[in-house]
């Protein structure tokens, strides 16, 4: 299992567009991918699930990836978050 935490710096948080891109990455994965924020957990393969977390600027999120391709997917999501949010 791979995990990391990240603090969202984007002013409007994880809105529809980045949520879509994150889901795109997660869907390619064989692993299970989830994100935790303010005590709630979302399945990152499901856009409504992620959107209902309503992640805002300043929120700390914890991403957990577990499965065959966990290292690669974890790295991909981390890079996406760092570069865009």
């Amino acid at each position: 299992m791979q995990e990391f935490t990240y603090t969202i710096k984007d002013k409007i948080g994880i809105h529809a567009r980045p949520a879509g891109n994150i889901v795109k990455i997660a869907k390619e994965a064989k692993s299970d991918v989830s994100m935790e924020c303010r005590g709630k957990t979302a399945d990152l393969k499901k856009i409504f699930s992620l959107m209902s977390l309503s992640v805002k600027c300043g929120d700390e999120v914890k991403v957990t990836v577990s499965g065959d391709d966990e290292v690669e997917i974890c790295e991909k999501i981390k890079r996406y978050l760092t570069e865009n949010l």
Partner: protein
Amino acid sequence: MKILQGTGASQGVALGRIKIIKSKNTNVTKHTIENVASEIARFNSAVEKTKETLGVLYEKTVREASEAEAEIFSIHIMMLEDGSLTDCCESIIYEQSVNAEYAVSEAAKVVCAMLVDTNDDYMMARTADVEDIKNGILTSLTGENEDVILDENTIIFAHDLTPSQTINLDKSKILAFVTEKGSKNSHTAILARSMKIPSIVGVTGCMRAEFDGLECGVDAEEAAVFIQPDEKTKSKILVRGEVQKSREEKLRTLKGKKSITKSGKEIKLYANIGGEDDLDKVIENDAEGIGLFRSEFLYLGRTELPDEETQFCAYKKVLEKMQGKETVIRTMDIGADKQAACLELEQEENPALGYRAIRICLEDNDIFKTQLRALYRASVFGNLSIMFPMITSKDEVERVMEVASCVRQELKDEGISIDENVRLGIMIETPAAALISDELAPLVDFFSIGTNDLIQYTLAADRQNDKIGNIYNPRHPAVMKLIKMTCDNAHRAGIWVGVCGELAADTDITQTLVAFGVDELSVSSGYVLAVRESIINSN
């Protein structure tokens, strides 16, 4: 003539005929079905068909608007693949033995409720996406064609347009959008802005059947819809449209020109911004720099103070995007009147005259140092000037300079590179600062006159209070004298002086400010070209 009011979501005026677009499929009936398995199969094939349609819409939007606008449809496809909506549908069909149409509308309600539950404006606006997907599936189920035939010069009236409805309409025939619901954040509003179609949202009572086909005027600036406008209103709208058009054309020709007066003085014409989102407009309107970047957004609407890294990233982004053009960032200007939970400020009787801005920074050095560290670290990525608000005395300026020099030393000791040429200036926005500007000028690199507060403090008139709107007079001679005095004292000390605040955008006063010797004007991006025109016409 009947006048309806709403919220202007995309600027402009229009005069045309009303076409009411009713939301389709609103009357879904519930009936029991015999064969659950075949109903689920029918539902699944409708979902597949909807995905195909969305793919086509994506392509169409890329062609008509942009890839960024089109992305919403790929998100819709994801929402369909997500399972939340479709699984819910299947279980409703399965458990209740009902038709797919009814199941879809019930499932959409469940998902919308989940979004509304986030209690977040942005997510709540996404319920329109769910509605859109629902309607897409319903159309696929019933096989109804959604095409709407439009006449020339149509003004669309709708309850709330979904993104797919908006993009499916023939834009060459549409002059404006009027919707009963919707917000400035809705996709229709965003699309309308990107296609430059005037739009008014939140117009209560616009969906009356008898309006269909009537003549109608729309003025987004006044957020007004005129049904069967009289001749006077019509000509007003037409004139306004013409004026806007010819002015825009004329102002566009000023892009790339210098802001030089007739006597050859070059004025730095900068823009005010409140966050990085405003940057595109700054560049689009050809501002020569940023004269006021309000750093407040970093502090508002959050419970914890923004850390150094968060601030550094925000400043770096702006400085990089400005590509070496001067960028004046103002340190935190917040008082008890603003919603800044992270500062935990106590309620005050008179927040405008209270514990705010630099007064907080000088008291709570950690907040101040964090911001200055972030600013200096970002300084190597562009052309930075830092400006301090709410100054009233020499002592304050000296203390500010001391903290700044301390921060510079700290960073150097840590081996972090900074730009040695960062200029430090102050805002002249209290009468006290203007009156002692001769003593303050030698301590700083520039002055920026914040007229909004300077006027309110000089005339003892709250600018938010309509009752005393006549007392809040930006051209009061007392205000003019303070501005002139500040300019003279700045030049005597050899520093530059600018004006930010609404007065800088008042083109009737540009000539006076230039005559006072103002070196820089900083205005909202939308006013840059108009002020440039007025500088060029000044002596």
